[in-house]
């Protein structure tokens, strides 16, 4: 397994070069659904981070015992358990937030991002690398969610975290906090990211 990426490579890759949302287009449901406010986006990212780190570490620990045809069952079982734990914790300590996020917390179970990391990284590499990979990917996920949420919240309500930052003369673009705003913002940001990375790789090729 000499050609497997090291822990640091995994960590760095997750944040930008292999950003789960912008580059791999994984986990789009929460990306669109909970990004009408930064607070919700950060809570969601925290929940995903918890589940991803726990699932990756457990999978990595038992990777030598995994049978090929049973591994998806085990991944699902692990993920579903940790999602339930995260859901209960939110309901107990951040009740208002858990009401806002509603069904999108349990929907983390079918978030392709997590099962994909278990399959690609954790079932093949050691605990340390798997943990680093999980944290890197979660940071990338958080970054993507926060970028979309920031754009939507500023344009849609004129504020961040519920505190007004734009002058009162700004008339709020209500559409940005409604469902269509999610699609439009994410589509435009995705195009922007593609354009930027094309330009950079073009430069690198020429230079």
């Amino acid at each position, binding site marked *: 397994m000499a050609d497997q990426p090291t822990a640091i490579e995994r960590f760095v890759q997750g944040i930008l070069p292999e950003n789960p949302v912008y580059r791999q287009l994984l986990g789009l449901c929460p990306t669109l659904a909970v990004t009408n406010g930064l607070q919700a986006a950060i809570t969601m990212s925290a929940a995903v981070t918890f589940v991803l780190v726990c699932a990756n570490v457990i999978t990595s620990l038992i990777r030598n015992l995994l049978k090929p045809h049973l591994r998806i069952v085990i991944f699902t079982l692990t993920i579903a358990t940790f999602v339930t734990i995260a859901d209960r914790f939110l309901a107990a300590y951040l009740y208002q937030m858990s009401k806002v996020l509603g069904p999108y917390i349990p929907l983390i179970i079918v978030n392709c991002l997590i099962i994909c990391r278990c399959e690609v990284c954790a079932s093949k590499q050691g605990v340390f690398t798997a943990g680093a990979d999980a944290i890197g990917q979660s940071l990338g996920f958080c970054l993507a969610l926060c970028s979309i949420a920031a754009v939507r919240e500023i344009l849609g309500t004129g504020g961040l975290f519920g505190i007004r930052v734009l002058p009162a003369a700004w008339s709020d673009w209500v559409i940005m906090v409604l469902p269509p705003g999610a699609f439009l913002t994410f589509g*435009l940001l995705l195009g922007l990211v593609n354009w930027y990375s094309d330009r950079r790789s073009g430069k690198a090729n020429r230079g």
Partner: protein
Amino acid sequence: MLSYLIDIFLIGIVAALINNFVLYYFVGICPFVGVSRKISTAFGMGCAVIFVISIAALISWTITTYVLMPGAPLTQWAAGLFMTPEAAAGVDLTVLSYIVYIFAISSSVQFVEMYVRKFFPPLYKALGVYLPLITTNCAILFACLVIMSKIVGVDNPADAWDLGRGLTLAVGGGIGFTIAIVIMAGIREELDLCDVPKPFEGAAITLIVAGILALGFMGFTGVDSGLRKAMMPEPAAVTAQVQAAPEAGGGDVHN
């Protein structure tokens, strides 16, 4: 009876059009972006989703009502074998619901696949390739979760959803998914002929088009309250009739 039928009808309309699964709740986005290149494949995917979502709703409604919810009959009976009736009444298995749902969905997908392959080979040829993909389609789990939220923890036990309502929601949601993905595929077939800026090719332009589509679907908001008013004249509404008349049309007053 009539009011029940109206209720069912409205649940279906709301799930399919007004609060469309894809364009309002954002569930099932992955296949919506991934499998919407051609109308025929999109339609196949949609049919497979309708099929699986109804089975999943049936299973999850049954399990929730008889096993998982607090005071569910089967659990009460089973717990009653080991403990006092008072202790058995307090048994609450809702914490297990997410795990149970996801396994119910994946095993039902497996069984459906085997059954269809054995008995309906043509159908299997049409839908088979999409079936395994559906397990990780959030729309299915989402339908189960919505049904659960209508059964567990409602203030008024008489308002808890029966099987008919649950199934209608699931089928309506599946139809809504099909409508959205087929429209999207139609647009994308045309889009292939357009000159899209290079960074926006593929997913980015799909999402922007979906945004405009969602904007269009927003026009359905409020149709349900209008329909409800039109179909169910409330007996108590006599005193409020003075200003009720001009608004019977529904959604047009808003926005």
